[in-house]
């Protein structure tokens, strides 16, 4: 058995048919005998119908043209960013420089100290 407070708390979901079957039945039964809750239900229904009756608007005629112009502009920007992708440029350069610095340390040198020591 639902009281008015509980019914009005659930009227919104009742109108949306989003309650359990038992709650729907209980509210329906309450509405039959309670004029105050019926009035509240009617008000909420009118709010819904007033929202649905708002006149629909249309996009302007140039909408599609503008949209594709924006898409084109953005894809071009992305394309140009890709042309100068700093990661792809900097990584090989850094690797090359590092290689040049490290290579003398790794490759055995003919002027090594052992060779010098062997000379009389």
């Amino acid at each position, binding site marked *: 058995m639902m009281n008015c407070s509980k019914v009005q708390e659930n009227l*919104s*979901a009742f109108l949306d048919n*989003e309650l359990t079957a038992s709650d729907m039945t209980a509210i329906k039964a309450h509405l039959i005998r309670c004029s105050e809750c019926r009035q509240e239900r009617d008000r909420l229904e*009118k709010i819904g119908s007033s*929202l649905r009756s*708002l006149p629909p*608007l249309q*996009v302007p005629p140039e909408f599609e043209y503008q*949209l594709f112009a924006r898409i084109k502009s953005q894809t071009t920007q992305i394309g140009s960013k890709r042309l100068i992708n700093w990661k792809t440029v900097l990584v090989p350069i850094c690797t090359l420089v590092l290689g040049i610095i490290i290579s003398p340390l790794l490759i055995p040198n003919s002027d090594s100290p052992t060779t010098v020591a062997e000379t009389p």
Partner: protein
Amino acid sequence: MTEVLNGRDRKGNQDLGNKMVTDDHLMCRFQEGDESAFKRLLERYQDRIMNYVFRIVGDYDTAVDITQEAFIRVYMNAGRYLPGSRFAPWLYRIASNLAINEIRRRKRWRFFSFDEPINSDEKSMTFELPDESILSPEANIIQKEDVESVEQALEKIPVKYRTPLILREIEGYDYEEISKILNIPRGTVKSRLNRGRSLLKTALYRQDKSQQTAFSLKEE
């Protein structure tokens, strides 16, 4: 599937095909590189999304701009769409996020602006519901209203209540779909709709009352 759909197009039953081809099929075709599929999705949803965004932001030019941005994101991120999922809630989610961000941006701007008073959405959250005895009996608050007053009343409702209300009442989504679009639990959808309807009822009642006051002042 694509061939069958293309076959329909070749038969010249474009209108019929338009109705029969699902959004998901069109999105899959677009992922395969068919730009006409994107255009058909655009035709289907451009007005719906623009109206939805307009009801949130309350400004036509901004609504058009946000709608374009939403479709740009669909175009650019088509690869992220999962075939078999529903396209419309995905699109509405993108549009919702953009519209809500716009509202937040405006609020930040108003906060730093010396020209405009702060009249944020959160302020209108402090609405208190009128005593029910004032509304009844038969106040008929909605019957007198015209389109303008409904739009004005809707704008007074905080965006977190306004958005599910629009999705439910105007767009016709159920709680589960609204939950996915707005990324909030189903229970929150239920409570926000309940609160949103109460706030709209209050806003309409206050407008009705102020209009009556204005009328009586003119009479004097």
